[in-house]
Structure formats: C-alpha cells, structure tokens
C-alpha cells in the first residue's frame, strides 16, 4: 500500500507541464473526458461482471445481479 501511494504521489509531481485553463480547448472536448461514455461503460461492466471473475477497477466492482 505504501508503495502504491508513493507511486501515486510521484505520478502527481513528475514534471507534468501545467496546462492553464485557457489552454484546455482539446481537453474540454467530450471525447477527451475519462468518463465520457457512461452508458457504454455501464453495459460493458455489466457484461464482463457476469462472465469474468474480476470486476471494477475503473469504478466500483460490486454486485447488483445474480447473473449467470
């Protein structure tokens, strides 16, 4: 766990160039949003939750169906 947090902290601090708010023309586009397709993601999560032993990661991996 400690290693993971160190990794995350380093990632946050490693020379990522600061992008000013007025430079976010590309990043503000819908297709650049990390959660820009919630319905596709929900369907995929549901299908793979039903067919594979691992779930979640991007978001919660909990239950919600007795899928067979």
């Amino acid at each position, binding site marked *: 766990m400690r290693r993971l947090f160190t990794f995350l902290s380093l990632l946050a601090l490693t020379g990522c160039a600061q992008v000013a708010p007025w430079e976010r023309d590309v990043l503000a586009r819908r297709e650049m949003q990390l959660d820009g397709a919630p319905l596709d993601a929900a369907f995929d999560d549901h299908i793979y939750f039903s067919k594979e032993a691992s779930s979640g*990661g991007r978001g919660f991996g909990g239950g919600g169906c007795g899928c067979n």
Partner: protein
Amino acid sequence: MANNDKRLGVALAAATCALLGGARSAPAAAADDEDRWEIESALLYYGESDDRVQDASLSVFAKRDFDDGKLLDFSITADTLTGASPSGATALDTPQTFTSPSGDDTYRTAAGEIPLDDTFLDTRYAVSANWTQPFAGLYTVSAGGSFSDEYDYTHAGANVRLTRDFNQRNTTLSAALAYSWDESDPVGGVPVGLSQMLDEDDLSNRGDAQTKDIVDVVIGIAQVVNRTTVVRVNYSYSDSSGYLNDPYKILSVVDPVTGDTIARTPPPGEDGPSGIYRFDNRPDSRTKHGLYAEARTWLGGKVLSLSYRFMTDDWEIDSHTLEAHLRWPIGATSYVEPHLRYYTQTAAEFYRVSLVDGEPLPQYASADYRLAEFDGVTAGLKFGHETSGGNEWSVRVEYYKQKGKVSDSLLIGNQLDRETIADLNAIIAQFSYRFRF
C-alpha cells in the same frame, strides 16, 4: 492573493469550458439556459452462440445541470434474459438427467455434450441516482444509490465520492466508498453447499434466502499531462462477505479411475438425477485488490485511449485486462471507433472439474467456468454521427470470445478426451441516441 488567483483560474476554466461547449454545437449553446437535460438512451443485445444466454437490455441515462456545477444524474435499465448456461457438470458418453434448480422438474443433456442448464428466464430492473456538487472551491462531493430486482435476486447499494483538484486543476485526487447489500432467493430455496442434487420435489437440502455485503473503496488520481493527454490511476479494494456461492452451479462426483460420473437410479416412480452431483460451495468472504491505469490522448483529431487493469484476490484469482479504443473522425460530424480488449485470469484455488468419489469432500469446490483459467478477447467497432441539432446517435457491434484452459492435473481418465469447458462466443450490438433539451 493566491486565493484570488485560484478563483480567477476557476472562473476562466468555467468560461473556457462554456465557450468550447458552445463552439461545438452552436444551436445547443444558443439555448443554453433551457438545455439543462442530457439524455442518453440505448438498446443492447447480447447473444451467445449455441443457444446459451441471450439478453436484451434497454437503458436510459439522464443528467441535469443545475447552477454552480451541481449535477443530478440517474439511470433506469430493464433487462430480459433467456437461454442456457453451463451447470458445472462434466460431459459423459451417455445422456444425463438433472433436477432443475427450482427442484420441481428435470432436464436432460445429450451424450457427449457439456451439460447446460436451459431453465433460465429472468427479467431485471435496475435504477440508480447520483447527486454531485462542488464545495469549498476545489472539492466535489457526490452521493448516490442503486437498486435492482430480478426474479431471484435483489440488490441495494449506496455510494459517496469526494474529489479535490490541485495544481490549477491539473491534478484531481478522488476517494470513493460504496456499500452493497445483495440477496439471493432462488425458486425452491438455496441449496446447502456441497449437498447432493436430490430427486424432483425433494427440497430437504434447501434453505432460506441468503445475503451478502460488499464494501468497495476506490482511490484515484487523474492528471493532465499536457494540452492533449490525460491519465488516471485507481487503486480499488473490494470486500465481499456472506453468501458467495452460485446456487445454480454443481459438480459431478466421478469415479477415481474412469473420471465418469457415478451413476444413480431414482427410486421407482420418481424423476431425478441420473448421477451423483453436488452443489457448488465457496468461501464466505473474498477480498480483491485492483490497480487500474488509463491514458487518453488527442492525436490531431483522433483520440486514443489505452487502459490496463490488474486484479488479485484471496481466492487466488489474478487477472490482467488490456483495452484500447481509437476514435477516428470521418468528416466534421461522424466517427468510427475500433475497440480491442484482452483479458486473462488464473483459476480460483478451489476450482475443480469434478469431485472424486470415495475421497473426503473438500471444504470449498466449484466447477463454475468463470472461476477457471481462461482468456477472453473482444473486438468491436462503433460508428457515431452528430446531427445538425447537436444530438448524436451511434451503433456498436462487438464480438467476445472466451477460451478456457484446464490443466491436465485436474482431469481424470476419460475426462482427458472430452471437452471440459465450452468456449463462449458472444455478439454485443448496441444502438444509442443522445439528445439535450
């Protein structure tokens, strides 16, 4: 002064986003005050080959913008599911008869075929809602709930998420917590783990509905790398406790030499199983850890998204998932998006193909193919088009294939010559429409 700078940054970010949103769809921007709702609806078909599971699903996701970044979203889904699923029993050179999961009927599997339980028919309704709002400048909090109900299963859940922006909103840290309560209530009752499949109408090994609790924690960081790239990394923890068996999965009890199921004849005048089968039994707790990393980058109009997920749990299942999407514009208003996904997992420590007659029963055992070692590959293509009114429709078609791997050490006698896990081949087709009003 620093505080003022931050506020200026926030105001500029908001203004920039608003301007950019407007530039992309002018008609929507002109009526910005009224266009507070965004609705995305989708129809999904999921179909497995060989008359296995077929699912049709209708889903509506709605989002309403309020002032000051406050957001309400909710979703409603209806699913209808039919078809057959591997029961866990092994194939034999002779036909097999099983008592159905409800206990009031029997079904047969032909010689040489992997037994599929074809008695599934279910309808599922699911709803969820979330409220999100910023506070104290750089924080956002969201809270929500979910509920779903199907014939034999009920779920209720609640979640809360807190995020904080740093570095002129180039870095976002988030922490989220979810709690789920799920109840399994199969028709005929919950079979006692490892108990033997009984004759039709004999429910003496069945008990009351069983529940499980699931706690999920996700801690994440999202980082703007430069003007065209954003990455995120999540650590996830999930703890399930309670009834984790699958009440419909069984194992064949086999001869230690031939590997064939021990035959059994139901009493005269009664219908029942033609062999000895026992119900699946899993530990009553499971702890999972996951690491998920995703990068999204703009390549002169195209958008490439790559992700990797590693998961490990105390059932000794490790999995790796690699996924790639490439959104490729066609003209100003359309795009195609190829998608590839690769998944691989190791088997649960208690996964086995069958139980051996004469040996003491193990504490836990399951022949559920989803707990076996396997690889899965998905390949798909999505096409999307933005209408002149700023709405979007899209179609996607995907093909999913699973190939199981069973080590020879788990097989006995004739099992070595027979197919143990049926490959899974499925088509996923989805039509979506998104609009604002």
